[in-house]
């Protein structure tokens, strides 16, 4: 825990939990969160005793091996799922089912195929947004993600990268207190992924919301996040149940130099934590590893 949530954010939400405050960056607190799924072969614990504090406006990346519960963790914060034990707080109040203070960009774009990109983005707007204002906001968001020229196209008519940008715009349309990104760039080609990462940084710089980013890409985590959380199974009594293994504070201001030597040190450390042999030689930024 390198930061404490700003006291103003807590007092403002404690006195005014009304949705009028949606749009302010929210701190997130997970305390003792546990989640077990029932499977045909018996209960499968996924998260256990997970504690994590995220300051308002902070960008936190969660990494961990495949199937370790990263997405489950994110779903707890979004209110798409509820923990079996522990609590999840947004700005000091418990997260509600499908919490309106959060917005999720899923791993797949999940756009409605029969709607144009503009209408898909409009789906993210808070209910009751006046029509003219809605049109303006959608146009602004499409412009932000570089889709102004494709507003009238339907998801099947555009590339995966464009669909994912529309999905991001839809999430931003909600003016979320916490933006939740579930491997949002995972399915994109390498170049588009780099562009999307810069786009996310631009968006965050223009409107600093709290961002929780789940990724399997160590480079991406180090490039985007203030802190990187490594999830792993810690308790030998509950194999498979992940908890926070370590938290790394990433040095340097964004946008960062992707070839920064300090980052490659951290990359080696994180990959090591993920159980991937890195064959890392100190101060050799030319080495790149993929998981």
């Amino acid at each position, binding site marked *: 825990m390198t930061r404490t949530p700003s006291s103003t954010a807590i007092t403002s939400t404690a006195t005014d939990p009304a949705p009028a405050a949606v749009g302010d960056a929210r701190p997130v607190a997970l305390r003792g969160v546990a989640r077990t799924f029932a499977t045909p072969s018996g209960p499968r614990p996924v998260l256990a005793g997970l504690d994590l504090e995220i300051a308002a406006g902070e960008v936190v990346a969660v990494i961990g091996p495949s199937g370790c519960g990263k997405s489950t963790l994110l779903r707890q914060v*979004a209110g*798409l799922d509820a923990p079996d034990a522990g609590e999840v707080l947004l700005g000091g109040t418990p997260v509600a089912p*499908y919490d*309106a203070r959060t*917005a*999720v960009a*899923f791993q*797949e774009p*999940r756009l*409605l*195929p*029969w709607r144009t990109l503009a209408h898909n983005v409009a*789906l*993210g707007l*808070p*209910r009751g947004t006046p029509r003219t204002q809605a049109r303006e906001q959608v146009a602004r968001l499409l412009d932000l993600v570089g889709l102004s020229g494709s507003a009238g196209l*339907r998801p*099947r008519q555009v590339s995966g990268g464009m669909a994912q940008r529309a999905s991001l715009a*839809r999430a931003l349309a*909600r003016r979320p207190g916490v933006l939740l990104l579930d491997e949002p760039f995972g399915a994109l080609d390498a170049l588009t992924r780099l562009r999307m990462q810069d786009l996310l940084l631009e968006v965050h710089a223009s409107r600093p919301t709290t961002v929780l980013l789940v990724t399997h890409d160590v480079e991406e985590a180090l490039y985007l996040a203030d802190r990187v959380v490594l999830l792993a199974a810690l308790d030998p009594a509950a194999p498979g149940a992940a908890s926070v293994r370590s938290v790394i504070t990433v040095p340097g201001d964004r946008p960062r130099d992707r070839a920064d030597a300090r980052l490659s040190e951290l990359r080696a450390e994180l990959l090591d934590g993920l159980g991937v042999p890195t064959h890392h030689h100190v101060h050799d930024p030319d080495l790149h590893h993929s998981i």
Partner: protein
Amino acid sequence: MSVTVTGTSAPVTDTRGRAVPGLNPFSPGHAARPGAGPLSRRPVRLALGLALPAVLLVTWQVVTSTGLVAPYQLPSPASVWTAAVDLVERGLLGQYVAISTQRVVLGFLIGAALGLAVGSLVGLSRLAGSLLETTLGAVRAVPSLAWVPLLILWMGIGEDSKLTLIAIGAFFPVYTTVVAALRHVDPHLVEAGRAYGLRGARLLGAVQLPAAVPSVVAGLRLALAQSWLFLVAAELIASSMGVGFLLMDSGQNGRVDRAILAILLLALLGKTTDALIGLAEKSLLKRWA
């Protein structure tokens, strides 16, 4: 056709700026692309579709005019035509076609609307599904003709019993497709809808029903065909007008020409309404494909 040849690399276009297929060997409009061929052209397909009916008509004419088949078994096309003209002159044919079409359209609309409503309920609510599915499945298993005596006893031989029978016929294809379609809506889309604050009727209207539209339209088309089926069942047994009545009446009086006319009419009417709904389907599904 006046064409503009602007240069070697620019596509050759006609006066409206469209690429001229034959003059642009490397443009996407060129006929050599996969899937292209005479069968991709609409008039060709239409002509092929009409070829078999034409052959049948010629065969019909030949076997009747050569005396291969006796006229009391199969009258010539000309005498069926005469029977049609005769019925038109008496003002009966128009009336029969109109009343049958009216019954089908009304019965179809009632049945389809109910099928959509009950299907949505059963498809979305587990409680409604558990309560209704078994019973409706059993009702569905009852053959259409089995309803006729009961409906006549309950409602008489007027329009009500006929509309009810047709509505039953139209209900089930819509009901079953709606239930299945709603249960198979991509759960990812539904979750995304919920995550963006949609619930209940809003979620149904914005995500679930639109996602089910392609299969629902297919169900509606099936229901319309079924409506014509049930119409004949209703009119064969108790009616004083309509195409089904014409069929039954001709059968009892040995008027093979009129019976054949009635069957041709049913084929024509059924195909026409199906084509109309097919057109609607096509324009609707442009957004989904």
